[in-house]
């Protein structure tokens, strides 16, 4: 499975990559912000995109909207990865319409399984 991680934090990106690749056996592509993420998504057409919400240059919601507006990437499932955890913040993210929301901090040993699980659930 090919997954694109879009997150501005170098450490979070690196650790997510290790979790998904070493533990989960996934092929990981990385992007540092939404703008880079859009380019990577159209170049690699991943099976799923893991998208941070708060990022400089182009944040998660704007990136999500651009992904959905592009025919090449519109059908790629998007999992939001966010440090926003209050019910109101979660509700705002849910309204955007992604496939799932994962809240930081996540369990690195189950992250890949969690991604596979949400992708296998009927939508």
């Amino acid at each position: 499975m090919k997954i694109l991680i879009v997150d501005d934090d170098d450490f979070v990106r690196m650790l997510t990559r290790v979790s998904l690749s070493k533990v989960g056996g996934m092929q990981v592509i990385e992007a540092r912000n939404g703008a880079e993420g859009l380019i990577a998504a159209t170049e690699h057409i991943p099976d799923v995109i893991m998208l941070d919400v708060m990022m400089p240059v182009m944040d998660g919601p704007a990136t999500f909207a651009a992904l959905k507006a592009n025919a090449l990437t519109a059908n790629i499932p998007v999992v939001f990865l966010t440090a926003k955890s209050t019910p109101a913040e979660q509700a705002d993210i849910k309204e955007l319409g992604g496939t799932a929301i994962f809240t930081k901090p996540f369990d690195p040993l189950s992250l890949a399984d969690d991604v596979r699980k949400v992708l296998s659930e009927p939508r």
Partner: protein
Amino acid sequence: MKLVPLGHTPTSDAPTASRVSPQWMAAAIDGLRVGMVVVDAGTGHIVFANPFAEQLFGFPTGTMPGHDARTLVTDADRATPDFFSRARTRALDATTEWTARAHDGREFPVELQLTQCDADTGLVYVALIRDITERQALDKIRNEFMSTVGHELRTPITSIRTSLGLLDGGVAGQMTPSARELVGVANRSVTRLIALINDLLNLERAGREPADTLPYVVTSVDELVTNAMADVAAAATARQVAIEATPCQRSILADPTRAQQVIAQLLANAVKFSPAHSIVQVECRVEDRMLRMSILDRGPGVPAAFHSTIFEPFRQVTSDDRDRSGNGLGLTIARAIVRQHGGRIGVDDRPGGGAAFWFTLPLASEPRV
């Protein structure tokens, strides 16, 4: 016009009343930096408005009296059947927030204090109105700030927690038993740090949100208890503690997420301090149109000296058992939520040993079966 609050009949020989000059009163009301609008309770028409009220609502000087008071509210409120009766129920003798409508149709948020007076011309409502546009804008900035703080704190913690999780999972190679023990300590500490940050943000929010902005819903108490029991089921199983709830069959008017949080917090505490193989009991009854729920355990109880302080931040009863210590904010958050709903919270000794934590929340008018 002479205004006399109901229940306070001045007498001519009252020394204070005799010294109040009508001119002073008029000057004070004219100079108030708060809108004052007096409405005839019978007709619903404005009979008096001070200059600040006319300025606030954009009426030319002296033109506000005579208008129907509903011209000052939104179209939706104006279309509400029985608007005056509903507004009176919600606002009388309280401070409430409304969306007001200016003379030019512009809508803006206001805070309203409404009192009822028996004037010499009949019953009137006296409304004191403040524009809270700026306050709401500041609240929004504060919300965004707290959200950013939460985000900025959680991001590095995510890296620490994830690194520790990967080490613990052997992703970076096998660790010696000593190294594994140290990673375990770090892992547990970071877990507590995350819980503390979440609790601080919750507490900040509970202490700031005005009570009338909560999403009140008629909520089944039994559903809340069932959900809260599910929240603590893993901890209860681990401690071999059973939870038994007597069906309540009532509904409360509350923000269900927060009400469940209160019940789960008290259940978690009860489970944490209960001896193995004991039972935590949940009971409820109606008391003064409020639901009173009690969570009863057979733990060591709360010493009387702590009964009044245990709900203060970081005021735990000292425990040498690290397993039983929390971050000291759970009960403070529970109290903040209960108070937001207009309820009370406390702890008593349970006859036969143990603690009896209780709280009250407003009952919905219809019983739910």
